């Protein structure tokens, strides 16, 4: 058996790797009905909440009234550009200090965010995994 056979096997496996990755990236993700009411997560710890939010964040939607019920530093939801974010864990990590975040908890803050961070990819990226759903118009 020569080295060509070995390399053929390696190339074959790498091809399967990329094909599988393409399937994973482009697969249609089913709507999950694990949690429709985020308040049901109240008894779970922060890490579990974060994990669930990561897993199902794109499929939940909330009204502005629901967002307004989470208006404290420990429980801080904010609506920005039609998405709803749980910024509770971000309050203490915000580079500009906690006050700007605390002041917008429970509110629609698109204008404020766009004025302050509109052109910042870093700020946009920081929001991605804090997303817990979309805002019902």
């Amino acid at each position, binding site marked *: 058996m020569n080295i060509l056979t*070995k390399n053929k096997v390696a190339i074959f496996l*790498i091809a399967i790797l990329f094909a599988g990755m393409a399937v994973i990236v482009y697969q249609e993700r089913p709507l999950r009905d694990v949690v429709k009411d985020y308040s049901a997560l109240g008894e779970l710890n922060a890490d579990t909440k974060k994990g669930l939010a*990561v*897993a199902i964040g794109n499929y939940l939607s909330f009204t502005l009234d629901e967002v307004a019920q989470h208006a404290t530093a420990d429980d801080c939801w904010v609506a920005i550009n039609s998405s709803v974010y749980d910024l509770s864990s971000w309050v203490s990590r915000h580079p500009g200090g906690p006050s700007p975040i605390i002041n917008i908890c429970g509110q629609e803050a698109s204008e404020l965010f766009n004025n302050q961070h509109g052109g910042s990819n870093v700020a946009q990226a*920081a929001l991605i*995994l804090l997303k817990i759903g979309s805002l019902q118009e």
Partner: protein
Amino acid sequence: MSNFSRQILRFSLAMLFLWFGWQQLSSPEAWVFFLPDYVAYFPIPGEMLVQLNGWLEIIAALFLIAGVYTKVIAGLLGLHLLGIALMVGGATGVRDAVLAFANFALAFSEPDNWTLDKRSKS
């Protein structure tokens, strides 16, 4: 290390990665909690990241089973596991660190007689 020992080590590690890779691929929601905070800056969903990692581990396991570039793959898997061990910490971290060093043991030993690495030389 004897030829038989290296075969046991290689297939055992391959089974390990096949099993956990399949678990990540089929039930990503059960693994997403282990993702570190910096994943928040990635532009892809956590579930997808877990599935991609699972698929990568499955293919790496197939490389080990076939015995293709065994030393390189075992070394990379060792580094991968060591990274996870340092990130997770605790008892799980200790377990993963030990498994990482088992990978390094395979990486630093000569390929056994059942590998394509060995057969391609003969």
